[in-house]
């Protein structure tokens, strides 16, 4: 500030002959010194330091969680965990094979429900014109659903499925989880479909393809990696959800094959509910098992997430 004022005034006043022509004369350069003794610089440095510290502090929990998962969960990891049934209180050993299987079954069922609905709705939204009211409403509904509390999906599935079919089941859990997967799939699929260059669509239409042929043979294959990314992200989120399963799929200490045949309409174990149940138990074996289950679950979630992200990166590279 001081420089500009000094420079301005020296230029405007008529210059006597004996005066120094340097416009910077009369500037107190110590004022401009970038020194920590100047309050402006000091505040700048302090705030920079504060922001750095806060960012580092925000990352500590992440490292703490990962470290504990590896340390407490990793020490317990063994093959038996994946093949055996959960132990009774005070019993040693055991595993959570049925919970892993249950989680996979619930997530696959949920994907079967939500992927067709999400992708076809996205096709509608991407094909609709900017001013289409229905598309705007659907998009807004999807955005509102993104912030929908997961427990309420459970409450809804309880009311709609558990009460009508008369019992807790994997299907009820899948319905609850599907509601949570839907907005992610819808919004990412719409984005991916919109990214397809209009030229390709126009070329298809120009060659006489019907609307359906354009969508099925041009749009969907081109946007496929993007859509798959959305599905993967949704699956990753779904695999970690606990709240919607608590009173829809409930929990079970047994495999899904009761009485010799495979039955989806019975209470089903899941890793998330196992962690919740075992974390509160006073038995050491159960608590250790909760940590091991948490490690397995986080690994499942992260691997799905990473696959999804690498797919989207591939797509970006292709476009470049």
């Amino acid at each position, binding site marked *: 500030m001081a420089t*500009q004022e000094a420079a301005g005034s020296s230029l405007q006043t008529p210059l006597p002959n004996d005066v120094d022509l340097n416009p910077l004369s009369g500037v107190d350069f110590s004022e401009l010194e970038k020194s920590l003794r100047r309050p*402006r610089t000091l505040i700048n440095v302090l705030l920079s330091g504060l922001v750095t510290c806060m960012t580092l502090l925000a990352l500590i929990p992440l490292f703490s969680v990962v470290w504990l998962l590896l340390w407490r969960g990793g020490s317990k990891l063994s093959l038996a965990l994946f093949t055996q049934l959960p132990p009774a209180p005070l019993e040693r050993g055991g595993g959570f094979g049925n919970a892993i299987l249950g989680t996979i079954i619930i997530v696959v069922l949920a994907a079967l429900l939500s992927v067709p609905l999400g992708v076809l709705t996205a096709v509608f939204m991407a094909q609709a014109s900017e001013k289409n009211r229905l598309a705007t409403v659907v998009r807004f509904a999807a955005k509102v659903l993104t912030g929908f509390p997961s427990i309420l999906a459970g409450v809804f599935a309880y*009311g709609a499925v558990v009460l009508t079919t008369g019992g807790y089941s994997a299907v009820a859990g899948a319905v609850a989880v599907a509601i949570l997967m839907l907005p992610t799939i819808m919004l990412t699929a719409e984005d991916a479909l919109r990214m397809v260059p209009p030229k390709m669509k126009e070329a298809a239409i120009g060659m006489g393809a*019907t609307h359906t042929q354009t969508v099925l043979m041009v749009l969907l294959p081109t946007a496929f990696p993007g859509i798959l990314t959305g599905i993967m992200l949704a699956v990753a989120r779904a695999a*970690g959800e606990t709240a919607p399963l*608590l009173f829809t799929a409930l929990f079970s200490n047994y495999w899904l094959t009761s009485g010799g045949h495979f039955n989806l309409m019975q209470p089903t174990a899941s890793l998330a509910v196992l962690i919740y149940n075992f974390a509160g138990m006073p038995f050491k074996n159960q608590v250790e098992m909760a940590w091991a289950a948490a490690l397995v679950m986080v690994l499942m979630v992260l691997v799905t997430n990473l696959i999804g992200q690498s797919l989207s990166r591939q797509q970006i590279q292709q476009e470049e």
Partner: protein
Amino acid sequence: MAEDITISQPPSRWQGATDKFFRGLCYTFAWLSIFLVVLIVFRIAMQAGPAVRQYGLGFLTTKTWDPNQEQFGVLPEIWGTVYTSLLALLIGSAFGVAAAVFMSEGYLGGFIFGILKFFHVQFHPFWGKLPNQAEYTLKNLIELLAAIPSVVYGLWGLFVVIPLIRPACNWLHAKMGWFALFSTDLSGPGVLPAVVVLSIMILPTITAISRHSLSTVPPKLRMAAYGLGATQWETILAVILPTAARGIFAGIILAFGRALGETMALAMLVGNANVLSISLFSPANTLAALLANTFPEAHPKEISVLMYAALILLGITLAVNVIGAAILERTSAGLEGGK
């Protein structure tokens, strides 16, 4: 003639029919997804019906929860939900916005660039990529915070956060127990551990949306501020943050919605006690945690009451989310119009 040798042909009747069918299918599915949202609200409201008629608005203002006497009130749960969410929001937005500024100002990249410059390798084909890679990794690490399931955070809070903060909390209670926030001791689960974990869980939302909104601030504004002689932080506080304020605000509102509806971490850490207290160390309860803990073993008569509680939670979160989404919609529209 050209018509004789052309391979193009009008869509056959079968193709026309499938086309109509597919268009209709997409249209129906779009309606179906709206119908689903309406159905969720309607279904919960229907099942809450009996309890709404029986308890009316008194349900919101009474404190007892006694299935045996059939007396129900959710005032402590509503208080607990709002109290924990607001506190978590306070911590989460401070750290979230700080992290967003840290990333959008490129501190980490600048720092690494400085180190490389010291060794004169800042434009080296391998080392020169490092600053950008570090920024990218930092962004992913913050996003990773959001990928960890909430039940794992609950487990972590139970075995790490509570033992860690308990001595400090009890010391504060012993020395400053007259202060309302410290008026009880922390015997295990309580408001503070829940708030700590909750703020970590909402941080990625705030950071992601704030960072996006900071990155859309036109660089001209920054250059103009620097040109006038402002320091980096004078620019951030007086120019960049106010310009991005709306987007940041929308992010904070959406994070608030998430905090209100968060279930598992709170069900494990908040203590599930029907207590109405301002103390940070007292156990409490939230609407979502009440649902999670009571539903699995609920008496048939309790179901309708729980649906009423769910309806209240739905109303609060839906309102907050709609406001947040609407603000976010407007901010992006406004910035696009300004280009």
